[in-house]
């Protein structure tokens, strides 16, 4: 009886998928990570399954959704205090120590679920959707919805509940309006407008974004919300044969006069040999100019993604070389100018089979304790497979 029910369910699901002309695809991503710190070897791993559904059966409309199942194994319980400098830990009230325990629990969630309706030059997207903005590689100042991982900045970002309207005025001119609701509260919900124009070999954008930012005080674990108004711009193009881009914002804070700014500029080039080189300079005025000014809130807001960087100025570099037609080797590096620390991230990418990719990535932190890329954070790496179906 149980098997009959299961078979009926599969048959029903298959019929629905076929009838609705639904594409079913996704990937399995096992990742094995290991690192070494304080004379101890740790391994923390996961298996990630992402299943995507997409249908364009209704004219001019696209339905898309994906679910993610994350299954952790290896070391799953962590204490964030282990990664903080001693002088910071000494300032933390002992009764709050339990709050610094972190456990990676298996999760299953709907990452995206949206409908996109195209009506002539308009495209309306409603639902939980991926949103990306800006031209930067290491960081996107104009994008307050996502925070990139410095070690792996191109990894996919989560979906956001939003209502998005794109108006394609001309071949290289478009307007975007985005509404990200917070509990159906119009005033506190996020509102963004962005205009983009292409001129010659350049694309330019300007944007305005009013949004609510949440800050946590990690001494008391109390959260405060504040309204911020962001004015931003970005460009991408080329000059003297080099690819160039830049992105910057100015943030007006509602509750204090401590307005902030952030920008990134970058350039890249592909040599005849296939060697690709890129460098970016990033400044975040919310970061600190020296490591002596890193306090508990700075560290924790950096770890939790509330702020994008710990230090004020950093340089990101990337080189990649196609060793063979299936193997790409390279390395990225981030140098914190503010605190003179450095992380080197060598990587090897191998296309094992047509739909199977392997990525081997290492991280070597080279910095004193208390600096952004302190060697006490632990050196190691991961092997990630991506099996697409």
């Amino acid at each position: 009886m149980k098997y009959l029910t299961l078979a009926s369910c599969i048959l029903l699901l298959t019929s629905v998928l076929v009838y609705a002309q639904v594409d079913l695809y996704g990937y399995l991503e096992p990742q094995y990570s290991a690192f070494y710190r304080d004379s101890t070897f740790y391994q923390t791993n996961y298996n990630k399954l992402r299943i995507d559904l997409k249908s364009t059966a209704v004219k001019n409309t696209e339905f898309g959704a994906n679910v993610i199942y994350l299954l952790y194994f290896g070391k799953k319980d962590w204490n964030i205090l282990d990664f903080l400098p001693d002088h910071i830990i000494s300032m933390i009230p002992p009764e709050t120590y339990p709050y610094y325990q972190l456990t990676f629990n298996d999760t299953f969630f709907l990452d995206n679920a949206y409908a996109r309706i195209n009506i002539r030059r308009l495209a309306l997207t409603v639902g939980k959707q991926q949103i990306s903005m800006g031209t930067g590689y290491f960081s996107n100042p104009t994008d307050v919805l996502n925070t990139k991982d410095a070690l792996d900045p191109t990894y996919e970002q989560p979906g956001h509940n939003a209502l998005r309207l794109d108006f394609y005025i001309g071949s290289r001119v478009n307007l975007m309006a985005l509404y990200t609701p917070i509990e159906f509260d119009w005033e506190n919900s996020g509102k963004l407008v962005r205009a983009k124009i292409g001129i010659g070999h350049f694309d330019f954008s300007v944007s305005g974004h009013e949004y609510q930012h949440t800050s946590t005080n990690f001494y008391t674990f109390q959260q405060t919300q504040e309204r911020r108004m962001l004015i931003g711009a970005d460009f991408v193009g080329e000059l003297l044969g080099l690819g160039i881009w830049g992105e910057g914002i100015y943030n007006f804070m509602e509750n204090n006069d401590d307005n902030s700014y952030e920008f990134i500029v970058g350039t890249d080039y592909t040599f005849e040999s296939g060697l690709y080189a890129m460098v970016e300079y990033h400044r975040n005025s919310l970061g600190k100019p020296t490591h002596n000014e890193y306090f508990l809130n700075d560290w924790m807001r950096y770890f939790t993604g509330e702020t994008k960087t710990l230090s004020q100025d950093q340089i990101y570099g990337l080189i990649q070389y196609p060793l063979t037609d299936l193997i790409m080797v390279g390395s990225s590096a981030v140098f914190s100018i503010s605190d003179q620390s450095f992380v080197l991230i060598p990587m090897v990418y191998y296309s094992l089979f047509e739909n199977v990719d392997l990525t081997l990535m290492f991280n070597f932190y080279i910095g004193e304790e208390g600096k952004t890329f302190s060697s006490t954070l632990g050196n190691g790496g991961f092997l990630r497979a991506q099996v697409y179906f």
Partner: protein
Amino acid sequence: MRKILFINKLALFAVLFMLQIAQLHAQDNITAQDIINTMTETMNPDQSQGKMKMTIITTSGQERTFEYETFSKNQGEKSLMKYLKPTRVKGQTILMLNNADDIWVYFPRTKRVRKLATHAKKQKLEGSDFSYEDMGASDEFIEEYESVRMKDEKKEGHDCYKLELIRKPKSSAGYSRILMWVDKESLVPVVIDYYHDDDPQLMEKQLVCSDIQLIDDIHTPMKYVMYNKLDNTHTSMEIIEVTYQVDLPDDLFTEQGMQK
């Protein structure tokens, strides 16, 4: 009505084009530039839509197969490629405007559009032996090279015009020199030898075009094989289906079109 007008326009274009070829045949003293101009017109019809299969044979002898849809307009000045297979790259779309001087890539998994600079034209397309430049720059032979007619030769069983193309000073084209054999009958290139960016004597790649068929009155090589002489790899590209009787909307060649 619009469709009928378009088809009439296409028929007129085909007749004029055939007359042009006939005129070229009648002349024995035709210049290299005439041949290049006519060949470029042949290879870049006003509009086209097709489905292609690309097979890469890697250094280790492994095979990688890709399938994609292609759309082009304004004699190839605008083109769009959308991957259909394998699933790893399905939906990934490349938009090339201004004869591939401006390239955007759309990654469906991250919903991100990234603009590439001109230097990226040298990068391999999905690890194949074709670069973005090989795929997109429709007028490159005219704009970036000075051409010289050499002694006619027979190549791959075809009577051919042999041409030498030398890169113009200050050009950003990726090859220093090109040798080309153009079939006298169809004005389609049969073999193209591409020479290294820094060394005009070092052959980097060789393109062999075969199975020339008349589709919608336009001579079309149905198979292309690019041999990489330095890496000892090759990539073949076959046209699964193609039509030139289309009226593609301009909206297709935009950021919106990439995401549809």
